[in-house]
């Protein structure tokens, strides 16, 4: 498979600490790539470099084997982009805004646009300035998808969307993937990336920490289980099980931090009467922690 996005030593200095440092990254054709990191890590900077909105201090970005700077308009013709800080023309209606964008691109299949609006339940007849954040977001998504681009670059695409629309977006992205098109999306939410992406790059403080298959990421992720037993249970019963990183017992409540599969812990707990089981999604910081403490196996 050929590389759709190629970043080599991509570096952007801003005055102080922000920016990105020496980023190497390849996204293959047909891949859904997740770019994961906390706010301010450099996700948006990277995307704006790829879209030629800002220029690198060092290194290069290539898209479709074209130079991101020199061939920007050629790349844009084949790319759909949704910025993280979405700003649309508030005085235009959704239809006017999208017609304008379509005209700039030399025309699009308008029936397809209407189909997208229907699927996302988006009223295009109202002035954009009167829409809620979620509805503005939908217009932004349609704008990115309307010319059926080979590459979709979405900066935090689901923030502000209600769960129903999020699901519809996931379905749309599935279709994009099924058609062999490429998606590069950024997020600070681990489960979102896990459910959408094939491969994930984790960025922190401007540096790429690791690139992994989503499956591997899940395996190395920490989960927190909290068992409420009918009677007191000793922490010792869990502490030596595979994957267990930490156990505390307080009366009838046992809390475990487990890396990878929780199978052994759940089976051990099942020997007792379990009144309740609470499981927490690992936060992004905990995923990072798993890397920095180096106990998560094959990091990198």
């Amino acid at each position, binding site marked *: 498979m050929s590389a759709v996005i190629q970043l080599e030593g991509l570096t952007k200095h801003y005055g102080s600490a922000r920016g990105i440092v020496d980023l190497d990254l390849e996204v293959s054709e047909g891949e859904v790539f997740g770019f994961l990191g906390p706010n301010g890590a450099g996700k948006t900077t990277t995307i704006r470099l790829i879209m030629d*909105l800002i*220029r690198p201090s060092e290194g290069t970005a290539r898209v479709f084997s074209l130079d991101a700077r020199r061939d920007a*308009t050629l790349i844009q013709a084949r790319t759909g982009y949704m910025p993280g*800080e979405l*700003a649309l023309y508030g005085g235009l209606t959704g239809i006017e805004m999208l017609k304008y964008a379509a005209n700039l691109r030399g025309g699009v299949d308008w029936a397809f646009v209407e189909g997208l609006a229907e699927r996302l339940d988006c009223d295009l007849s109202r002035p954009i300035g009167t829409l809620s954040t979620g509805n503005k977001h939908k217009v932004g998504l349609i704008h990115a998808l309307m010319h059926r681009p080979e590459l979709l670059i979405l900066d935090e695409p689901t923030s502000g969307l209600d769960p129903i629309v999020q699901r519809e977006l996931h379905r749309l992205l599935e279709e994009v993937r099924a058609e062999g098109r490429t998606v590069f999306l950024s997020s600070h939410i681990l489960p979102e990336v896990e459910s959408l992406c094939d491969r994930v790059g984790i960025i922190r403080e401007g540096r790429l920490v690791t690139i992994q298959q989503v499956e591997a990421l899940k395996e190395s992720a920490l989960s927190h289980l909290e068992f409420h037993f009918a009677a007191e249970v000793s922490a010792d019963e869990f502490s030596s099980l595979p994957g267990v990183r930490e156990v505390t017992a307080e009366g009838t409540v046992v809390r475990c931090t487990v890396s990878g599969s929780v199978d052994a812990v759940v089976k051990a707990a099942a020997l007792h009467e379990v009144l309740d089981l609470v499981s927490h999604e690992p936060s992004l910081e905990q995923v990072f922690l798993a890397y920095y403490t180096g106990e998560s196996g094959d990091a990198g």
Partner: protein
Amino acid sequence: MLANVFLKTLRDQRRSLMWWGIGLVALTSLTMAFYPAFSDAPDFDEIFEQMPEALTKMFAGEFTDLTSPEGFLNSQLFFFVVPLMFVIFAVLAGSAAIAGEEGAGTLSLLLTSTTPRWRVVVEKFGAVAVATLALALFLWLGLAAGAVAVDMDISLLGLAAASLSTALLAVAFGAFALALGCITGARGLSAGAASAVAIAAYFLNALAPLSDALTPLQKLSPFYYFIGADPLTNGLNALHAGVLLALTAAALGVAVLAFERRDLHG
């Protein structure tokens, strides 16, 4: 009106253009309503001549012949009020063109929609220029109607030349504001700095003749090339108009080069 960046920018200006046009027509008709009073009273010229020279120069330049149609229009409209309005209009439009959209955040999508940056700048400049010329048309129509109403003996061609000269001056400052916006990305800064330069240029042109040492500096002011050759009386001076066009082209060139190079804000 949404076919391209040029038309979209004109569309954005349509309301503002309408109000400025109404204001301009109101100003010119109100001013011209006073013309019969002036022309019937030659004493006005004497009163005017007795005023301190610095004061008359400041707001009327060399145009102290209030009772002739040309002198009246030049001193009461073309020297100060009309160019002031035009320059403000063009500076606001020029600073809004790139820096305004950048501040609003919509430039991110516009610049990733396959239109190259240089073309976005050129089309937006085109819209500012056309809007300013449209304003000049309003001005000319207002003056022509006024001249007929108060039975003023003035050449319609002269009025057209003076209106066009005003537009050329304003477009030059509009292009300057556009260039500042392209360099800095800051709308308020661009509008403010361009206005400050325009005010300084105005006073340089108006007051430099008061001092022998400063007189040569008058030719550094774009206002000199707008009114110095009295287009109302003599028609458009090709050389002076050429200087204003050259200034505009230079500012547009700087705007494009600066904008091609820099990082977008936001």
